[in-house]
Structure formats: C-alpha cells, structure tokens
C-alpha cells in the first residue's frame, strides 16, 4: 500500500453547480504534494472531501485504504485521528493559550497524565521554534507565529496525513520561507504525507515532490516541479509566471465592450 490518499474520478457540486468534475489524484506516503490553482477553483473542496467533511456525488476517496464517503460518523472520527489539518488562518482556539491549543487533542483523545502532555506539547512547540510562546494567547501572536502554532497543533497526535489549506496566504516572505521549510522538514522527519493547497507557486515548487494544477474543476496538468517549470501548457505557463492575461482571462465574461458602451448605435 504505497498510496495513502487515492481520489478516483470524483465529481462534486452544490445543487447542480459542479465544482469538481472527474478528479483523479494520488498522494504517496512520505511525499509532499501540492494542489495549485487560482482562487475559487475547488482546491479547498478537495481537502474537505479527503477529510470527510463532505461526500462526493460520484467517484471515491480512499484514505489509508478506507473509503471516506462510506464511513459512518464513528469511523470517520477514528480516521480523522490520523489526520491533521492546518486551516487557512490557523483556526486556533481563541479562548485557550498556545499551550492548551496544542494539548487540546491529547486531552480529548488520550488519557495521558498532565506531565507527559506538558513534555509532548513543549516538544511540538520546539519543533516549530515557539517553545517560548507557550503561555501566550492566540491574539498575541503574529500571523506567521499563529500559523506555526497551528502547524504544531496539526501534528500533535503524530498523524500520518497532514493537509494544509493555503499555508502561505497573507504571510511576509520570511514567515513564508519558515513555514515552507517546516512543512518539508516535518514531513521528512515524522514520516508524514502532506497535501498542500496553495496558489503560491514559487514557494511551493521549492518544497514539493509532485504538483497538481486544478482549474475550473478539472486537473489541467500534473508533474514534478521540474516538469511543471518546463511545461509548455499555456495555463501552467500563465500561472507559474503570474501573467495577468492568458487562458485564464483578465475579463469576467461580458458582452462586447463596444456593445456595452452603446458605440455605433
């Protein structure tokens, strides 16, 4: 069993409006894969399908050999203990200190004595370089620090799969590099599998093993970072080089300009 996540021919949409149309995607153990695409193309929806928060209309999502769409609540919760997720803006519990945020899952799911929890939490915090911030409240953290705490929290129970929803959004270049590095390093040292959803091409191409490009609900391109950089596909070229116009048009669909301005009438 080499593939931890296997998505086969998945279609999903909210009342008739399709968001994903026939997606195939696999993540092998120990890899960092990236799902890229412009905003609103259904990347986050993919993560929610893997986490079992929504079920596909057709097709199947397998995580660690289990079909996520067919699990009952108990089975799903069991499976989720092996998953970690980093939400877009961290989603730290604002009424708890950094320490309690990371201890949260340990206290909920295990019967570990408080001294051991303390040691484990400090180890996780040390891994993201924030051991000194244990007693701060989330409101006292900068955006980059909050993201690192959330990262520490998502690996609190040593999951085998960690998903990152836009881990680079809204970060300064230094924090961005730190987070990117952490994702790579934690994946390698803890033997995780990571799925990064992002639109930050340059940063993610540095750290990932495999890339999927999603556009308008279908996978447009896939490959290793090298292949992507050399790719001649116009969509990928536009995306990687950040060109304003191309296959993804600058203009929202509209009547012709001349017609809208009533020229010549």
């Amino acid at each position: 069993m080499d593939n931890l996540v296997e998505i086969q021919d998945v279609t999903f949409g909210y009342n008739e409006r399709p968001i994903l149309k026939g997606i195939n995607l696999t993540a092998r153990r120990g890899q960092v894969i990236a799902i890229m695409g412009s905003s609103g193309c259904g990347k986050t929806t993919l993560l929610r399908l893997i986490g079992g928060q929504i079920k596909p209309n057709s097709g199947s999502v397998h995580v660690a050999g289990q079909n996520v769409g067919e699990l009952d609540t108990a089975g799903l919760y069991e499976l989720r203990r092996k998953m970690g997720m980093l939400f877009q803006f961290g989603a730290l519990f604002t009424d708890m200190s950094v320490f309690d945020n990371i201890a949260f899952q340990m206290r909920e799911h295990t019967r570990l004595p408080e001294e051991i929890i303390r040691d484990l939490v400090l180890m996780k915090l040390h891994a993201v370089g924030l051991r000194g911030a244990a007693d701060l409240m989330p409101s006292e953290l900068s955006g980059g620090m909050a993201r690192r705490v959330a990262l520490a929290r998502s690996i609190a129970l040593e999951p085998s799969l960690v998903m990152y929803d836009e881990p680079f959004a809204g970060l300064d270049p230094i924090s961005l590099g730190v987070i990117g590095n952490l994702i790579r390093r934690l994946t390698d040292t803890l033997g995780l599998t990571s799925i990064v959803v992002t639109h930050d091409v340059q940063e993610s191409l540095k750290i990932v093993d495999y890339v999927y490009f999603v556009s308008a609900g279908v996978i447009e391109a896939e490959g290793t970072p090298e292949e992507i950089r050399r790719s001649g596909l116009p969509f990928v070229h536009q995306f990687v080089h950040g060109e304003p116009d191309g296959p993804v048009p600058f203009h929202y669909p509209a009547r012709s300009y001349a017609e809208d301005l009533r020229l010549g009438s």
Partner: protein
Amino acid sequence: MIAPLRLVARLGRRTLQAVARIGLATRFFFATLLHSGTAFRRFGLIIREIYSAGVLSLIIILVSGLFVGMVLGLQGFETLQTYGSESALGVLVALSLVRELGPVVAALLFASRAGSAITAEIGLMKATEQLAAMEMMAVDPVARVVAPRFWAGVLSMPLLAALFSAMGIFGGYLVGVVLIGVDEGSFWSQMQAQVDFEEDILNGVIKSVVFGVAITAIALFEGYDAPPTAEGVSRATTRTVVTSSLVILALDFVLTAFMFRGVS
C-alpha cells in the same frame, strides 16, 4: 409573472424558509441534549461557561434588581397610600418580583448580556474555522462547545433570577421601610402571609428555568447557524436578542396562564 403573484410566491418561500429553520433549530436542540454526556462527565467545561454566562452577568442583574425593587417600593407606596394600606407594600413588591419581574426582567437582561455573547462567540468560532478544526480533530463541537454552554445557561438563569428578586425585595425594603418609614414588622409579616412557597416562589423558579433553556438554545443555534462573515455574526447576535426577548415574553404569558389560573 405578474406582480401580485410574485409577491405571493415570495411570501410562500419566506414562510417555508422560516418553518424549515424552526425544524433545523429543533434538530439542533435535540442534538445538544443527546450530546450532553461529555459535558456532565467533564463538569469543568460547564463551570467555565457558568463563569462567563452567570458570574459575568451578576453586576447587571444585581444593580437592575436593586433599582427595579426601589421603583416598585416608591410606586407601590404612592398607590397603596391612597387606600391606606401601606402595610401591604411588602406583599406588592415581593409578589411582583417573585412571580413576574424577577424571572422576566432577569431573563431579558440575561438574553442581552449572555445570550448575545454566546451567539457572537460561537459565530466567530465558526467564522474562523475553529469549529471545523475541532471536527477535523475528531472532536464533536456540539458535545465540546455547544452542550456545556447550554447547561451553564440553564443552571445560571434560575440563580440569577433568584438574586434579582432578592435584590429587588431588598430595594423595596430600603425605599419602603428605611426611607419612607413603612412599619418594618408589617412589611415582612404581610409578605410572608401572602407569598406562597409553591404557588409563587417555586413557579417563579420554574419560569426562569424555562427561560434559561429558551435563551441559551436560541443563542447557541443562532451562533451555530450564522453565516461565517462579520456581517452574518453581527446579524445573528441581534437576532438572538430580539428573538429570545419575544420568546421570553410569549412564554411568560403561556406559563402564567397555566400556573396562576384558579389561584387568587
């Protein structure tokens, strides 16, 4: 479609939406009850929420109770004096507070102080994906976040209402006996002779428990159902205060009709 027809169609759609929302709220309420086990096994969770719902509402409840009681004392004295029965001031103050004003005004204050806070908190937790994060951590937010707040509200409300009434009676005593000079003995003895433990005090407590259930259930649902935006949360907060105030008053009428029918 012609305009009046469109109006009817819209009215029908709105009604259906409203009914569906009530159904959703009912399901949410029963889910809360069903998932209350964790909250009672880990009572610390409830205690934390009693602090933010009950203890933090104390000041407003005590001060309002005192003033309401003092006003009752003044107004009651003015009216009773006309009939030469100032000695019944204690009865008037105590009965109005214990039966009606205590449970109702305390509940209205609780709705705007604690109810709105609960909605805003849950709504923000939803908007910042904290609830989704919890779900992804295989922790049921209804059991971990909603149920403890519900029981904390239900437990706090009768205590707050009792404190409100006690404070109000003290206020009435201050104005009536200390300030105006109504006879202290008749103030208390008439009160004791006329206020019945079961009919008045116990019914008042039952009322406040019912109000506590209604307010927290509404506040929690509005928060949980709020659109995850700043505007959505602020509107949900407003709706909590408006809806629970109306529900309190309507329930008060129904309960009063049931409880005090045939008595007095």
